[in-house]
């Protein structure tokens, strides 16, 4: 199975757009990891009162109204945003996939209870649930923030996975496996999970983009990443009033979000196709 994973990755990366997306993501990650070490001054305000300065050799992305170097801030904010998006999406996908498999495979009462809970959870705006949960902290620690985002993001995924499980479970090959003596674990992990992974990957792409934007909104509302710690979303919202006068303050973090979401989507789509042997 590990061998087939390597094959799948190689096949996904055989498409040029997927390669571009993978390289872009790798570059963004490197940028977010390395630049804050080399240029550590993301919280320094060397020239307070001078206002926002446009990009120059000293500050390639310019500075914000507090004279902080935006290059350093975009890089450091990348760490925060990418960590939040990646980990929260991973958490919500794992839970959503697990719950979806359980509901779809078990059926009956288990399915009814789980799906009615999901219905109820989806009926409440996610932002509202998040605000309620995050109100427990004065300053939300990052791990808690990630956990809360992950725990509120799996409802849609579980529905998608369940629907896909119901479709796959009706296929004769599942009956054949049962008749060969396959137990629940084997049926779920060898037959159902591989056949629903495509849906999970599409869900992953949507989820990462959603979390980046959600994190921005929550940070703006004061319950997410707290100043002076930057995140891409928080920076965009910070700069929104100065869009016409100092557009660079919003341009660079905005482009970073755009590029990330785009690259994740392209990569997820390539992976989804590569997981399906029929598309080879």
């Amino acid at each position: 199975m590990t061998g087939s994973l390597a094959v799948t990755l190689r096949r996904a990366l055989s498409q040029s757009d997927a390669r571009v997306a993978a390289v872009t993501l790798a570059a963004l990650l490197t940028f977010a990891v390395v630049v804050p070490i080399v240029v550590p001054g993301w919280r320094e305000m060397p020239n307070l009162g001078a206002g926002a300065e446009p990009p120059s050799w000293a500050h390639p992305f310019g500075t914000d109204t507090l004279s902080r170097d935006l290059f350093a801030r975009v890089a450091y904010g990348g760490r925060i945003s990418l960590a939040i998006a990646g980990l929260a999406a991973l958490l919500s996908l794992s839970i959503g996939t697990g719950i979806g498999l359980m509901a779809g495979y078990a059926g009956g009462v288990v399915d009814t209870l789980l799906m009615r809970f999901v219905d109820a959870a989806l009926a409440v705006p996610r932002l509202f649930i998040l605000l309620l949960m995050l109100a427990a902290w004065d300053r939300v620690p990052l791990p808690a923030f990630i956990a809360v985002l992950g725990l509120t993001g799996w409802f849609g995924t579980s529905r998608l996975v369940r629907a896909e499980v119901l479709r796959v479970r009706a296929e004769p090959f599942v009956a054949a496996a049962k008749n060969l003596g396959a137990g629940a674990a084997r049926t779920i992990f060898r037959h159902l999970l591989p056949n629903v992974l495509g849906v999970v990957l599409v869900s992953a792409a949507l989820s990462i983009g959603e979390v980046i934007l959600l994190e921005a909104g929550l940070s703006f509302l004061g319950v997410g990443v707290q100043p002076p710690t930057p995140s891409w979303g928080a920076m965009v919202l910070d700069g929104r009033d100065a869009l016409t006068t100092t557009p660079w303050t919003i341009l660079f973090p905005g482009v970073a979000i755009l590029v990330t979401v785009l690259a994740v989507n392209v990569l997820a789509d390539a992976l989804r196709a590569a997981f399906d042997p029929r598309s080879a």
Partner: protein
Amino acid sequence: MTPLLEVTELVKHFENGGGLLRAQHAIHAVNGVSFSIDRGETLALVGESGSGKTTVGKTVLRLLEPTSGSLRFDGTDLLAATRNELRTLRRRLQIVFQDPYGSLDPRMTVGASVAEGIEIHRLVPKAEIANRVGQLLTEVGLDPALAEKYPHEFSGGQRQRIGIARALAVDPDFIVLDEPVSALDVSVQAQIINLLLDLQRDRGLAYLFIGHDLGVVRHLAGRIAVMYFGRIVEIGSRDEVLERPRHPYTQALISAVPVPEPGSARTRIVLPGDPPSPLVQPSGCPFASRCFHPAKNATCASQRPLLRQLRGAEVACHHAE
């Protein structure tokens, strides 16, 4: 000698609806079916769509739980078996499905599909699995090198061969063949039928062949059971049923088979109407509404005919003589 498989008064109802606001309906798919199959024998179960023949096949394997009735396999009560006993028993009862596309996991190489039963029942040491899979593929007429390929790379006929290899992998005594050739081209059908006959001869397999094509059934079956509306209406040896059909429904089925000689005389019996609704059980003969038998009378509408032994066959018709 006790038969390999003994099915007695098998009943399968599908509960439908039964929600808070809807009345519960039971679809009577199988209504008291009894038959037995000996080692190495083929019983064909024929009938139109909806007659319950596939449900019988799946219930016999307990892929569906029967509503009532008894199932004995090689002297063991299949319905009383515990989960573990059932798992062991299932090795000996296998199935080949109609749909060559849905019956193989698209995410598994065909080698992995064929190996699955071997792994579950630990039939050979791990190191020899690949070798065994190769033998099985060869046995069904495929190149062992194809084990690394995925199902979508094969034709319908090849996939059916793979499905057969998967069933053979656990060395069964009995295989339910659920319309295994009806989705295939005629030329490919013949190849698969010949393969099934060869395997039966070499391995002493018993088959329950489910189908509606009497031309195919003629090649495979030793005995034939004709199903209508969840019941067997006629059961007997192949020649008896095909050459001297006594039940009017069997006669109609046989008249629908194309005759290979142009111009040869044949009277086609076209049945009027549809089978009755499976939600309501008629009190009389379920075939009465479509019956063309000249002796049809009031008894047919009021009394359900039971299977009766007539020379060479059992027939459920008041006027079979």
